[in-house]
């Protein structure tokens, strides 16, 4: 019997496209035969905005890239400017930066994992990670006064030192994390329905992952051991002892598991950082007017979502001549159109969620 395909819009106003992403999908019955992603509903022209802001003034804008990982975005940007200018960062600030970046990784993965499981239909599984994330946000707001957009990192260090009560609270949180992750494994990871829904679904092969330039947990789930923290250590990451989880099959389940294990590894890094945390200032010697020499620089760090890189061209003025951002969510999203082929509508949603995109970053 001859059947016709139907074309359906998933998004921009859809419960599980993680913002205003639109996927025009062709369906043969329940099965997707192809799709086109439509981007740009949240485009704010951040790269262009940077050209009319001074270097420090652009820091708050980086918060709005991947708004679930503002701290890491800050870090990537300020490190790029530091690299351009050759600014030394005090030891204490370096350690605190690691602590905050790793806390941010946990917070971001909590949302990534939670929303992924929610898109599979388990609504309760989104509430528990958000409760854990809330504790991280408390730590952040205690330090810098913000809960979503922190604007904490400064060129040459940090805006504030940590308050006194921070470290005990952090210790408490790290101990809490162990039970929290165990509980989550109990609720989700062993669940047969969850396994049936995720194992073998939306496979990204090693070759595909590399040719699409994926990064972060998505590429590590496909068997490529690439973590910027290990491959091109930035800051003081070479001083810490941690593992990079790598899975082989590249399905949605592996992408979920990589995130779960990365959270444990982040806890390890934070514990080491607390142990070695030196005393001292948190803001180094920085010129009052930040005016980098003419030239260009690229620097990338391992963001929770993948490799976040900033490319800055300076003409010697206090404002960047050109700024480009390698946004991991945007690059990771590229593979979507290819891997949804042949999967059912429900899987398409699961695959999209397993890529863990944030539209603020995709659209820039």
């Amino acid at each position, binding site marked *: 019997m001859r059947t016709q395909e*139907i074309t359906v819009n998933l998004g921009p106003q859809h419960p599980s496209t993680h913002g205003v992403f639109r996927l025009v999908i062709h*369906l043969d019955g329940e099965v997707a035969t192809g799709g086109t992603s439509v981007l740009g509903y949240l485009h704010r022209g951040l790269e262009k905005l940077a050209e009319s802001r001074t270097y420090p003034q652009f820091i708050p804008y980086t918060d709005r890239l991947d708004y679930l990982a503002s701290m890491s975005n800050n870090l990537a940007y300020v490190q790029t400017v530091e690299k351009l200018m050759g600014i030394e960062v005090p030891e204490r600030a370096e350690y605190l930066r690691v602590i905050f970046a790793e806390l941010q990784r946990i917070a971001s993965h909590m949302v990534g994992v939670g929303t992924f499981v929610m*898109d599979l239909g388990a609504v309760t599984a989104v509430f528990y990670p958000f409760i854990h994330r809330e504790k991280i946000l408390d730590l952040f707001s205690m330090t810098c006064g913000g809960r979503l957009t922190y604007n904490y990192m400064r060129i040459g260090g940090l805006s504030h030192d940590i308050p006194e009560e921070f470290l005990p609270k952090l210790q408490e949180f790290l101990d809490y994390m162990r039970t929290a992750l165990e509980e989550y494994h109990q609720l989700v990871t062993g669940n047969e329905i969850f396994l049936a829904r995720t194992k073998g679904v939306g496979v990204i092969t090693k070759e595909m992952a590399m040719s699409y330039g994926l990064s972060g947990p998505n590429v590590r789930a496909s068997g490529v051991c690439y973590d910027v923290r290990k491959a091109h250590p930035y800051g003081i990451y070479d001083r810490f002892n941690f593992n990079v989880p790598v899975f082989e099959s590249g399905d949605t389940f592996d992408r979920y598991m990589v995130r779960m294990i990365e959270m444990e590894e982040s806890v390890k890094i934070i514990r080491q950082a607390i142990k070695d945390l030196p005393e001292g200032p948190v803001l180094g010697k920085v010129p009052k007017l930040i005016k980098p020499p003419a030239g260009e620089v690229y620097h990338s760090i391992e963001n929770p979502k993948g490799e976040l890189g900033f490319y800055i061209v300076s003409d010697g003025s206090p404002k960047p001549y050109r700024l480009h951002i390698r946004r991991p969510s945007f690059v990771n999203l590229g593979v979507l159109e290819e891997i949804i082929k042949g999967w059912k509508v*429900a899987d398409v949603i699961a695959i999209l969620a397993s890529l863990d995109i944030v539209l603020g970053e995709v659209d820039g």
Partner: protein
Amino acid sequence: MSVLDNLFVKIAALVRTTLTGLGLGDIWVNLAMVILYLAGILGVMITAALVLVLVERKIAGFIQLRPGPNRVGPWGSLQTVADTIKLLTKEDIIPACADRKVFMLAPVLVLVPTILAFAVIPFGKGMIATDVNIGIFYLIAVSSLATIPFLMAGWSSNNKYSLLGGMRAVAQMVSYEVPMVFSLLGVVMIVGSLQMSAIVEAQSKVWFVLLQPVAFLIYVIAATAECNRAPFDIPEGESELVAGVFTEYTGMKWALFFLAEYANLVLVSAIATTMFLGGWHGPVLPGWFWFFIKTSIMIFFFMWMRWTFPRVRVDHLMHFGWKFLVPLSLANIFITGIGVYLYKTIGW
């Protein structure tokens, strides 16, 4: 205690004698009694549905470490009242492209099978509207009609999400009908009667959940699928199909679907109580109260499941139904048949 035990039966008998005393003909008295029963059942059903909406939200909240709705009235008890008022005064939108007649008819019809099924539910000893001699058979026949309104709604909305949802609803209900019917067959084989009151009466010594544990399990799974509740809520499929078959429904039309969902939940829990959990049997407390407790426990279990599990994918659902539940329920019938026969002939 016996007064309480037969409270509703006594009331019904009183009404009947009063009506006969007024000199009404037999047929008119019977008619009046049926209307009385109907009013009672509708009252119970709607109250239950309204309360369950709140209970469900409270349970969801408690599982998610929230208090649930707690603003309207003490502990949020008037939340559903507020919701009902809102739904009643909502603008009713019928999409321009929809098939208007079918679109209108679907929510009207969605409650009918449920109301019909309630006619044979024994809420207590003697508390049954029409104790037809093919009770359980009638129940199965009627409840399988529930598919049609969903298909009507899905098709007539002229919305792709609704269409997919409607198709899924049919696939799911068709597949889980078979294991559900077979699981109930085991009980019928033991009792040797289709009458609901006889089935409950047969459980005075031992509940059938102990004799038919596998059938009970199959029934619970199939019933969850039959009333489209998570983890089998694929016709609604919120994360992929937005709201599935209900996408285009607003106001009271949507509320009727919602009402039907909860009424169905009560229905399947009541059937589980009747068929497996000994119906109104229980010590000390009045029978209807036991029935209420058992049904509530079943409802809690269904809600608890809903707020724990991810959604099953449509093909897994079909595979699970046909490749696991159907063979299992067939095997259950075989074993029950042999068991009952051995018990009868050898007296073992």
